[in-house]
């Protein structure tokens, strides 16, 4: 199986996609990423805006209807889900291998 060209995802992109399994606007994504990473990843506005722009271009996320005129709301796409799933499996494989290696020694 040839691996998707977007893989592996960066830690930040992984968390953004994970948080967009539910619709969210920019600032909410920022807060979710911070929470999911236990406060490790604090994205600044300019950086998050660029990341969203890039994910939209790659069609991994899409804008959905927003009742708030000042904030656009985004959601992961089907392609985004597939990519996230594949990266999850990649990480899971690494985790299992590492666990096994550590318990054997």
């Amino acid at each position, binding site marked *: 199986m040839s691996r998707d060209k977007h893989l592996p995802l960066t830690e*930040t992109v992984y968390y953004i996609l994970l948080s967009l399994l539910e619709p969210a*606007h*920019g*600032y909410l994504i*920022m807060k979710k990423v911070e929470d999911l990473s236990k406060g490790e990843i*604090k*994205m*600044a*506005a*300019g*950086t*998050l*805006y*660029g*990341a969203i722009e890039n994910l939209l271009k790659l069609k991994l996320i899409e804008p959905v209807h927003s009742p708030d*005129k*000042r*904030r*656009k709301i985004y959601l992961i796409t089907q392609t985004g889900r597939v990519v996230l799933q594949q990266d999850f499996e990649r990480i899971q494989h690494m985790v299992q291998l590492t666990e096994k290696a550590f318990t054997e020694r």
Partner: protein
Amino acid sequence: MKKFRFFLDIDKEEKWLNTMAKQGYIFIGKLVRYHFRPAQTETSTIKIDYRSFKNQVDYQDYRTLFEDSGWKHIAGSKNSGVQYFERIDENASKDIFSDISSKAGRYKRLSEMYLTLALPLTFALILSPVKFSTLLHPMSWYLTPGLWEKAGISFWWSFLFETPFVLLRNLSWVILIPIASFFLIKSMRARMQYRKMRNSTKHS
């Protein structure tokens, strides 16, 4: 307070606005001049992003994201490119970029903008009927018959008389070449800053 300044380098502009802020003058907007308001707290930070937008919805969304995260949009418009932000929340991030590659992205967008300014001018110059060889021989710009054989008052009179016409005829060259080269140089410089910054992330 109002001050007139002209910047071609957004890093220098940013630095100057922050020096003004430290002296207690907070940048609040720009028409022709930079407008400042006096402030008691000297902890304000000004940062400049470079972005243009396709529509109002995107532009509004962009400004709201910054404001939500503690950075107030103080100047700029949909198509102005330069966007000025002031840090208004002490819990806000120290910068508007939290990684080097996105900070480098600002230079990439700046470089692309200068290139879009330079390209039409460059094409106009290439396609214009004036030949490059004529350009290198300014004497051939003068059309008065026998001008260069004349001498003394007669020469100077004819020479000075024709000079304004020569300049007008070659205006496109005289003005366009410096402007186009300027934009090209700015574009290349921004591109180099972008590359340099982006590469520095690979080694860290």
